[in-house]
C-alpha cells in the first residue's frame, strides 16, 4: 500500500546523525534539522521563506528542525486519499509546487499554513510564540516592501497604508510580551479586514478583538494612520475643508 511506499521514502531521508540519535539497531522515528532542510529543498521549496512552511505543514512537523516518521506518513497518506497523489518524489514535488502557487491566492489555505506556523515557531514547553520569532514569521507571511525579507505571499498593506510596518512599529513601542495563539490567529483575521477597509470602519470596541488589537487601532488613530470615519460622512471619506 501507499504507507509502505511512504515509509520507504522516509527511510531514504534518514542521515547518519539521525541514526546515531536513534541508537544502534533501533528504527529511526524522526529526522533532524539537516535532513529536514535537505528534504525541503528536494521538494523544490525555498528553505529561507514561507515555502518551507508549506512542506512542513504537509508532513505535520512539530518544529522547524524535525520531521517525524509518523507525521510524514500520515501527512502524505491523507494527501493520497484526498487527491490521489502517488507516493513518489516527483509527484510530491509537483504537489508542493501547486501548493506554493496557491498560497497567495487561496485565503483559506493561506490561513491554514499561517495558523500551523504558530506550532512550528514556539518552544515545545511554551504556550506562546517569542515576540522575535513572531515578528520574523509575520515578515515571511505578510511581508511588505518595508520588510527585510521582502514581499510575502500576502503582503499586509492597503492602498495608502503599510499595515505590517505600522504593526511592527506599534509592537516595538507598546508590546513586550510573547504572542499567544489567539493573538497570532487574530492578527491574520484583523489583517484581512484592514486590507478591505483601510479606514478601520469595521472595528468597534465592543467586538471580540483581543485587547492588543484594540490598542493597535487606537494607536493607529493617534498616529493618523487610520482616520476614524467622520460621523455621517459617506464612505468614511473626509470632507474637503477649505481654509480661508
Amino acid at each position, binding site marked *: 500500500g501507499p504507507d509502505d511506499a511512504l515509509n520507504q521514502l522516509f527511510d531514504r531521508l534518514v542521515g547518519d546523525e539521525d541514526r546515531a540519535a536513534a541508537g544502534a539497531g533501533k528504527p529511526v522515528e524522526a529526522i533532524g534539522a539537516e535532513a529536514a532542510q535537505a528534504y525541503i529543498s528536494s521538494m523544490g521549496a525555498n528553505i529561507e521563506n514561507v515555502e518551507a512552511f508549506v512542506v512542513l505543514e504537509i508532513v505535520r512537523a512539530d518544529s522547524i528542525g524535525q520531521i517525524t516518521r509518523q507525521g510524514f506518513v500520515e501527512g502524505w497518506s491523507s494527501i493520497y486519499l484526498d487527491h490521489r497523489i502517488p507516493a513518489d518524489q516527483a509527484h510530491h514535488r509537483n504537489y508542493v509546487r501547486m501548493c506554493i502557487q496557491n498560497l497567495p491566492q487561496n485565503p483559506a489555505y493561506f490561513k491554514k499554513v499561517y495558523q500551523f506556523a504558530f506550532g512550528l515557531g514556539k518552544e515545545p514547553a511554551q504556550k506562546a510564540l517569542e515576540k522575535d520569532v513572531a515578528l520574523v514569521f509575520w515578515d515571511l507571511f505578510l511581508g511588505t516592501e518595508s520588510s527585510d525579507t521582502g514581499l510575502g505571499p500576502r503582503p499586509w498593506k492597503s492602498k495608502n497604508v503599510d499595515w505590517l510596518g505600522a504593526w511592527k512599529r506599534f509592537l516595538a513601542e507598546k508590546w513586550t510580551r510573547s504572542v499567544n495563539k489567539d493573538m497570532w490567529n487574530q492578527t491574520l483575521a484583523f489583517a484581512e479586514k484592514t486590507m478591505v477597509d483601510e479606514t478601520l470602519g469595521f472595528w468597534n470596541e465592543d467586538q*471580540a478583538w483581543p485587547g492588543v488589537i484594540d490598542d493597535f487601532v487606537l494607536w493607529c488613530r493617534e498616529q493618523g494612520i487610520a482616520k476614524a470615519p467622520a460621523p455621517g460622512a459617506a464612505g468614511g471619506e473626509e470632507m474637503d475643508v477649505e481654509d480661508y
Partner: protein
Amino acid sequence: MPPATMMTGAYGQQPSGSDGIDSTAVHNFCTSQKANGGSSSPSNHLPGIGAQRGAHLLGEDLYKKLANYLTDHLKHLVSEAEAHKDEALLAFYIREWQRYTNAAKYIHHLFKYLNRHWVKREMDEGKKNIYDVYTLHLVQWRDVLFQAVSKKVMDAVLKLVERQRLGETIEYTQIKQVVDSFVSLGMDEGDNTKTTLEVYRYHFERPFLEATKVFYQNESKQFVAENSVVEYMKKAEARLAEEEERVRMYLHPDIALHLKKTCNQALIAEHSTLLRDEFQALLDNNREDDMRRMYSLLSRIPDGLEPLRTRFEAHVRKAGLAAVAKVAADADKLEPKVYVDALLEIHTQYQGLVERAFNKEPDFTRSLDNACKEFVNRNEVCKSGSNKSPELLAKYTDVLLRKSSTGVEEAELENTLTQIMTVFKYIQDKDVFQKFYSRMLARRLVHSNSNSDDAETSMISKLKEACGFEYTNKLQRMFQDMQISKDLNTGFKEHVASLNMDGKPLDSTYSILGTGFWPLVPPNTSFVAPAEISADCDRFTRFYKNKHEGRKLTWLWQLCKGDIKANYMKGAKMPYIFSVSAYQMAILLLFNEKDQYTFEELASITQLNADVLEGALGILVKAKVLTAEGGEGGKIGPGATFSLNYDFKNKKYRINLNVGMKSETKQEEAETNKTIEEDRKLLLQSAIVRIMKARKKMKHQQLVSETINQIKARFMPKIGDIKKCIEILLDKEYLERLEDDELGYLA
C-alpha cells in the same frame, strides 16, 4: 274634588281651549266600543269618537289631545319666561318645573289605563315617539320649553357661579335644582326605565366647563402678572380645593373629573413652565412647603413631574459633590467619620425632602438614589482611586466597632451602623468594602479589641441582608472561630492543670483561625520562639492535634503578643510591664542571659530577617528599653550593638511597645488593594466560565453584558477587564473563537 279641578290645579292654571279630563272618562273612552259601538259615555266631552272603531283609534286620539294640551301649556310658559332673567328666571324655571313634574305624576296615574293598553301596544309594535304619559310630559317640556329657555337659564346659572367665584354668597340650591331638572330630561327614549346624561352634559356641563376655563385663564394670567410664583401656587391650590367643594355642594358628580381636568389645564398646565422654572430657586432656599405645593400641583397634570425629578437629581448630586469637596481639602488625612458624615448629611436632608414634600414618591426616591450613587462613588475624594469610598466607609465602621475610650451607647451605635448601611447601599465596589472590612474585623478579633459582640453580629447580619450569604460567609466563619477558640482555651487550661507540672504554667491564650477564611498570611520571616514560651506552644500543638487529627497548624508569629515583667531597673519601686510582640519578646528575653548583643547575634538566635528585626528593635530603642551603639550611619541594623538600659524610667508602669509602624499600615492598604484586583480577575473569569458553561455558545457582546449583570452587585467591571479575562480563558482553552464574533465553551 272634581277631577277637572285637580287637572287645573295640577298645571297651575286653566289652559284655554281645552277641557278637563277625568279617569272615568279615559276608561270609558278607551272601552266604549265594547259597550255599544258609537253611543257616548256619560261624560264624553271629546268629539268625533263615535265614528272611530276600536280602542286603538280612541287611544291615539286621546294621546294626541294630551300632547297638544301640554304643548299649549308650555308655549304659554315660554312667553311668560321672557319677562324674567337672571335669578328671577331661575326662580321661575324651578317653580314651573316643580309644578309641572308634580302634575305629570298625577296625570300619569290618571292615564294608567291608556298607558297599560294603547301606549304599551304602540310601543311594543315599535312605534316611534310614543311614550308613557309621564315621559310624554318630559319630552314635551324638553322640546317646547327647555329648547327655548335653556340657554338663558344656563347664562343665569353661570352668572351666579361667577359671582360666587368672585367671593359673593349665593343661593346655590337653585343651581342644584336646575342641574336636577336638566338631568331628568335625559330620558332614554327607547327605555323609560333608563336615563342618560346627554342632555345635561350638552346643555349644562359643556358651557359650565367652558366658562370655568375662561374664568381661570383670565384670573391666573392676571394673577401671575402681579404676584410671585409662590403666591400663585397658593392661589391655585385654594382654587382647586374650592372647585372640588363646588362639586360636592351643588353639582352633579358626573362633572367632577371633567371639571378637575379643566381646572388643572387652566391653572397648572398653562403655567407649568413658569412653575418649574421656580423649582431650582425653591431647592436652593430649601422652601419645603412651597416645593410640596409645587409637587402636588404638578402631580395633577400628565408628565408634570418629570422635569422636577431631573432637576432634583442634578441638585442632590451637586450638593453631595460640594459637601465632599468641603471636607476633601486634605484627602490623605481625611477622617473616615468626617467623610461618611458629609455623605450622610446630604442623603438625610434630601430623603427628608422626598418624604415631606414629594409624598415619598418612588420616582423621586429613585432620583435621590441615582444622585447618591453618583456622588458617593465619583467625587473629589475618589479622584485618587475609586476604592476610596468603600475603604473609608469600612474604616469608619472599624472605628465604631473598635474598643475606644469614648464609649458609645449601644442604641446610638446601632443607629450609626444603620446609617453606615445607607451609604453602603450606594457603594458600587462592594467587594472593596468587603476586603477592608474583613481585614479590620480580623484585626479586631485577633487583638480582642472589639467593642461588643452584639454590635459585630448586628453589622454582619446587616451586610448579609444587603448582599447575601456568600458576601458574609467568611466574616461569620471568623466570628465562629473566635468562639470555638474560647472553648478550646478552657479545655487546654484544664489539660495543663491535670499535668501536675512544677512551677506556674505560662498564662497563654491561643486562637485557631481557619485557613482561607481569614485575610491573614503566614509571617514573612523565619522565627525561633524563645524557650520560655515554646514549651507551652508545643504542648498546645499536641493538645490540638490530639483533638483534631490531621490538621496542620501554622504559627502566625507576626500577630502574637504578650506581656513581660521587667524587674531589673535600678530605682524602680515596682516592676514595669511591657506589652510586646512575640518578636520583641524573643529579643528581650535574651537579655536574661547577658546585657549586650550585636545585631548579628540577635539575628542568628531569633532567626528573624533583617527587616523584621530592625522594626522590632527600633521601637525598643526608641522607648529606651535598649540602647544602641555603632551601626552604619547610626542606623539600627548590621554592625550595631544593643545593651539593656538599667536606667529605664517611665511615668507609666504598663507600657505598650507593640506598636505597628505607619509604613506597615500603608503597606497593608496597598496589599489589600492588590488582592482586590486579583480577586476581581478571578471573579470575572469564574462568572464568564459559568455563563459559557450554561450557554455553550455566545456572541462576544452578549457575554460581556451578561457578565456585567452578574458582577455588578459586587463591583462595576470595566469592559476592557472583561475582555482581558476572555483572552486569558481563550489562552487556557476554556473558550474558543467561533465565526462571527461568537465564542464557544470547551468542556
